[in-house]
Each structure stands twice: as C-alpha cells, then as structure tokens.
C-alpha cells in the first residue's frame, strides 16, 4: 500500500518537474549552445534497498533528474525510510517520507559521452515522519534502567545536503549507474518535549548534526 502511494507520488512529481523545466528552456537557449529537449532520468537506489533486508533500517529511495543545460542537471529525490534506534537506553522508532530538491554540475565529462562523468551538487531536503520514543533514559548514579516514554507524534526535519558522485552509462544502453555520497547537515527540526531526534527518516542518525549518506542507483534515461 505504502510503496504504491510512493510511486504515485514520484510519478506525479516527475510530471511537475517536466512541466517546470519547459519554462527554463527559453532562458537557457540563448546563453548555451546546447539545446534543451525534454529529458529525464529515473533512478532507484539499490544499495539501500538491498541493505534493508539485512538491517533495521528499511529505506527505499529514488530520483528523477533532468539535464537542463550542458553541464547542469536538476534532480528531485523521494524516499521512504523506516528506522529504529536502540542504544544507550534509548528505544526510538521513526518512519516517514522525505523529499530532496536540487541540482548538480558536471565537473568532468567523458569527451565521448557527456552523460558520463563526475559531478557535485547541492540539495535541500525535508522529512515528514512519525516518531515514537518508547524509552528515553534518565541518568543518575546507582540507578540503571530508568526511562521516560512518550506518545507517538508527527514531526518534521529539514537539512541541506551536498552530493558528490559519478554517473556512468552501462555500455550503450539507456541504463546508467549513479553512485554518490551525500554529506548532510541538519538545519532545523521540530521537537517533542525539547528532545533532539535520534533518527530522522532520510537523514539517518541525527544526534550530531552532520551525517553522511551513500547511494548506488540504477537509472534509466528516457
């Protein structure tokens, strides 16, 4: 049920991204010789999808990107993350949807195929999720195992993220492999009872504001 709605959401956003890019087309045409033709690449992160089977974290994410000028691509990421944190007396559960919007710039391109190459980019991201603090530890000497529990609540978090990666075409097919790392910084989060969230869907462990994400996607260029 949930995945179905994610897909519907992804495809509806995809059509929005196409629609908005037809406007930017006019500006770009004069300055850059490269001509914009409606194009988009859809990718699914297989690294995190695969690791969902082996860890407590279930994450499905995908992206839609479109080349808007010779070296610049716009990209939208969407995903669903279900994660738990059980450590140091904490027992936290969080699940929800996240979305990222941004772009990347091709730093070096393969002279023979300008879709291959290394890139760097930036994204703004937000996550809307349910969290449940089943246990938050109370620290005091000589007393172990004292917790406070809270009711489930709905929270949101926002972060900025850089992306560094590479995109390589698989032979001469329309398939691409897209590998990237995303150092991220948690900018703002809503809190329950002033408690800093321990995990944020899409962001990961959030007790420190910095985090790093990796993705390995298979993409198809339409």
């Amino acid at each position, binding site marked *: 049920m949930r995945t179905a709605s994610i897909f519907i959401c992804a495809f509806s956003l995809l059509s929005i991204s196409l629609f908005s890019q037809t406007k930017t087309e006019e500006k770009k045409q004069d300055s850059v010789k490269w001509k914009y033709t409606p194009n988009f690449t859809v990718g699914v992160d297989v690294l995190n999808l695969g690791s969902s089977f082996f860890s407590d974290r279930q994450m499905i994410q995908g992206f839609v990107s479109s080349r808007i000028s010779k070296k610049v691509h716009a990209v939208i990421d969407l995903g669903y993350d279900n994660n738990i944190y059980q450590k*140091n007396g904490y027992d936290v559960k969080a699940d929800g949807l996240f979305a990222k919007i941004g772009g990347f710039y091709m*730093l070096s391109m393969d002279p023979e195929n300008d879709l291959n190459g*290394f890139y760097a980019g930036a994204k703004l991201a937000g996550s809307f999720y349910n969290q449940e603090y089943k246990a938050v530890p109370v620290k*005091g*000497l000589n007393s172990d195992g004292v917790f*406070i529990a809270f009711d489930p609540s709905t929270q949101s978090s926002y972060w900025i993220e850089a992306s560094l990666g590479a995109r390589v075409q698989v032979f001469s097919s329309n398939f691409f492999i897209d590998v990237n790392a995303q150092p991220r910084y948690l900018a703002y989060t809503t809190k329950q009872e002033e408690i800093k969230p321990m995990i944020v869907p899409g962001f990961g462990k959030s*007790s420190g*504001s*910095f985090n*790093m994400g990796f993705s390995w996607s298979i993409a198809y260029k339409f």
Partner: protein
Amino acid sequence: MKNLLWIFGLLLLLTSCGSDDDICLGEESTPRLKLKFRNASNNLLTTVDTLYVDVDYGKTPLTSIIYSANVDSVFVPLRIDESPYTDIYFRTRSGQTGSKLRVTYDKKSIYVSPACGFKINYENLKPELTGTTPVQDIQTNNTTLTDENSINFYLRF
C-alpha cells in the same frame, strides 16, 4: 579531479566527527544530595571519625555510598525512579542499628542532551529522621536540588 578528492576527504572527516551520542559527562547528570555534619553540642561544622552510608535504591542488599574515616560531607545520589522518597541509612560503628533518613521530594525531569537523556531535579526536599543514634537531628538548608553547589541538609551528630 584531484581537488574533488580533497573536498571529498574533508567532508568525510567532518562527518566522522559527528557522532557524540555515547558520552554523558557527570555534571550533566542528576545532581546528588549534599550533606554536611555539625556537632550537636555546639552546632559547629565537624568531621565524623567513621561513617557508613547505605542507600535503598529498591535493590537488596542496600547500596553502600561511603565507608570512610574523617569525613566532613557526603554526596548521596537520590532515587530517580517512581519512588517519592529515598531512604538513607547512617552508621558510625559497624553492627550499629543506625539512623534512617527518609527524604521525600517532588521530581522534575529535565532534558539534557542526546547522550545524557533526562536528568532529575528535586524540589520540596523534606527530611524525616528515625533513630537518633548516631544522627540526632537534621537542619534543613536548601530544599531544592538542581546542582551540587549548595548544602541541602546538616546532620547533627
């Protein structure tokens, strides 16, 4: 290309320092009850030649907080669970029945940090003494416990 690797390395370095949810420093934890001793005859600060302090944390046997010679003060961690009071037992000789100090209080949970979770602050501390040997009576000094700077009770020996 070389620059890219440098940027990548730098960012990895930044993110690797990000995880600090393991270490909770002592002062950010629940404060302890601070007790000092006075001489019952002249009310001057005094040291106790031998002191045994045991606390009931809801476990058996009691937890020994201190067994020491020539002490002038003692820090007692209070209970942080649902119990509305903490029982503290004082003895100056082994085998002695001793005095029981029951401290009742109102608790308040305060969020500290991801590593420390919550700490407890205590208000309306009320001492209740049973058994006048060796502790004869209690003088209340500060009835709120939010840090370990001020003395909460004076025990008169």
